[in-house]
């Protein structure tokens, strides 16, 4: 398993010098499941939103790209309602552009860029895409509304988590952690304590 050592390196890099607006940490249940948070870029309709992502690192990583999806609903032409992301670097060649020289940090940066610059010509959500193309104002309105509704820090405290993640049975705990923590906070440190607290 090359992925073990590589993941370790990547995680240490991510924690020591994370890209701006990106946090990533190891999940509590599984080592091959990472969690990340992206901060909506300024000037985009996602501004002030914090978006949760789930990263599944396959057995064959880095020879296979990690599977990344949004847990937080986001109104975006290339991200569907299940959080799946249409991005070439997330797929294997020849269709995709994944190579082992990429890493989770670069992928998250790419996703951040995709949020700022949707690609309506390769849409996953056709309706949002056409809206983005032809009714930009409406799109911005909707996107902002979703950001406000699902991704804003204040709302997230009270609203039930919208994370639709059957494979993630402890959404509540992780949600709790996210809500109670400022961004640079690394929940992985606190997880055991929280577990103990709950049990």
């Amino acid at each position, binding site marked *: 398993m090359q992925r073990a*050592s590589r993941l370790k390196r990547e995680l240490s890099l991510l924690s020591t010098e994370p890209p701006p607006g990106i946090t990533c940490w190891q999940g509590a249940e599984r080592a091959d499941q990472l969690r990340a948070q992206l901060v909506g870029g300024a000037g985009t309709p996602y501004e002030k939103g914090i978006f949760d992502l789930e990263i599944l690192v396959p057995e064959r990583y880095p*020879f296979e790209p990690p599977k990344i999806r949004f847990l937080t609903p986001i109104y975006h032409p290339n991200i569907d309602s299940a959080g799946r992301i249409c991005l070439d670097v997330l797929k294997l060649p*020849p269709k995709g552009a994944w190579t082992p*020289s990429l890493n989770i940090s670069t992928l998250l940066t790419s996703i951040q860029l995709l949020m700022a610059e949707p690609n309506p010509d390769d849409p996953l959500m056709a309706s949002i895409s056409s809206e983005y193309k032809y009714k930009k104002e409406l799109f911005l309105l909707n996107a902002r509304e979703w950001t406000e509704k699902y991704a804003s820090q204040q709302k997230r405290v009270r609203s039930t988590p919208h994370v639709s993640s059957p494979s993630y049975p402890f959404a509540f705990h992780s949600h709790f952690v996210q809500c109670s923590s400022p961004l640079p906070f690394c929940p992985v440190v606190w997880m055991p304590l929280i*577990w103990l607290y709950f*049990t």
Partner: protein
Amino acid sequence: MKLEKDNVDNELSGTLPFIKMESSDSSDKGNIDQSEAQRQRQLDRLDREEAFYQFVNNLSEEDYRLMRDNNLLGTPGEITEEELLRRLHQVKEGPPQQNSDENRGAESAEDVSNGDSIIDWLNSVRQTGNTTRSGQRGNQSWRAVSRTNPNSGDFRFSLEINVNRNNGNTNPETENEPSLEPSSGEDLENSQSDSEIPRSESPSVRQPGSERSTSEELTTEEASPPRGQRRARSRSPEQRRTRARTDRSRSPINPVSETPRRSHHNTSSQTLDHSSVNEVEGSSRTRQHVTLRQHAVGTEMPSENAVLFSSPETRPAPQAAGSSETNGTSESAAPGQRPPTIVLDLQVRRVRPGEYRQRDSIANRTRSRSQTPNNTVTYESERGGFRRTFSRSERAGVRTYVSTIRIPIRRILNTGLSETTSVAIQTMLRQIMTGFGELSYFMYSDSDADPNGPTPNQNVDASEPQNGGGGTSGNENTDVSSGEVYEGGNEGGSTSGARREGRNTRGSVTFEESGSLPFLSLAQFFLLNEDDDDQPRGLTKEQIDNLAMRNFGESDALKTCSVCITEYTEGNKLRKLPCSHEYHVHCIDRWLSENSTCPICRRAVLASGNRESVV
């Protein structure tokens, strides 16, 4: 959560010291212990990983190649250095042993119940390129040949299993054989077929004598395996006259290029896989030809064909197939029958993307083409995403059936590699493997259509000399003598005359459906290794080996392998791609076995296509 735990436990109980980075279990207490233990495991892993790199770096190039080709390296951290060392020694001492008959035989004996050993072997074969292995056990002997074409990436495999049905009864065979082979009828046929097919060019012609020396030797004569065919045949040497040649297959097209093998006693059956129609299509596929041939004595052979046909499916392992058949039929069959031989030839060919597209428009389940000159008929059907092509060509009483199935690889992957695949696949595979069970369906549905028209005529015409010579034709004669027998075989292909009659009796032959037949797994193996259009294509071992390799020196500028994000250390083996990017040998080799571009710059690694891959 429980699952998680089970996973961990399973892994721990595994034979390999394989440790997954499972993180904290949620069981209330023991949480900390768990993570403690886990941390320890991770540390162990990392130690092993270090040791792995150390080990790989200390290997000589030959040793490295040897281990890699035999898939012994595993992945870093998975196995201990000692284990690696042990494997190396084993493989170094191993080669002769592995080829030895005893070894092979034992293996086949042990694994009669499943085809796994063969699959494993295939896996290794596939990596090592051209290999020939043979073995013998009891009354079964086998020979397998695999070839890899480094240029095209084609992979070809043939497996031939020969079973001596009368283990204690070899004398009659040897006695009978001479009378069979060189007899006039055969000669006649020979001359006839020679006119069609310049047999003399076949490099694999063997002398009858040598073949006859051991009854089990039948299998070893494939000097140059033709592609994609599987043959089951059985013959009874006596009485050539009444011998019903219910099925004789020879592809009418492109006879020379295909290097027919077993040419002499195969006079009647030669399958060449250029059955024109299929050639073009299938973005990647496994091609199989079934030639079922019978030199059967009409009266005595009734059960033989059915038996042969069913053998691949009802028996757990190829070796077993024949032998149990032996038991099953020996009572009814005449004592002096020739041992049946099961031949399985498979080829996996890579087809350039787009090649398949041209034919995409062909309507489903329609006979797309009927060529009178070659009597080639093609059927296509599509069901549940699997495209089947079935084609039949006929000439001079020789019929070739080709079945092609194209299954998008992801379909299989989705259903899980190790588990039994979906029902659809299984049925389809079973159908191929059981001699085109669906053929009869086509026959039914198309019975009124023309293929019957032209074929019999040609058939009769061409086979006239044979009829005169020794009654060898597969036509109506056959029906009378052993057509009923051949019912099972009819599906695989008897001549048209027999086929008609066969249709009536077909129901009497039932194929047992057992999921564990080895051929099924063989087919699965090949299908699984098939490339879909969308799948990344890797380089072959040969192509990878042709890339430059060197040892890391401290003065080098780029110090980190971008695949494993690990810095090179002195003595690391690096591979340099044409674009000058370098990686750890073991890192890049793995990537290139499935992809063909440089991880950093995405340039195609192969010189021929040194283009930027468009993404």
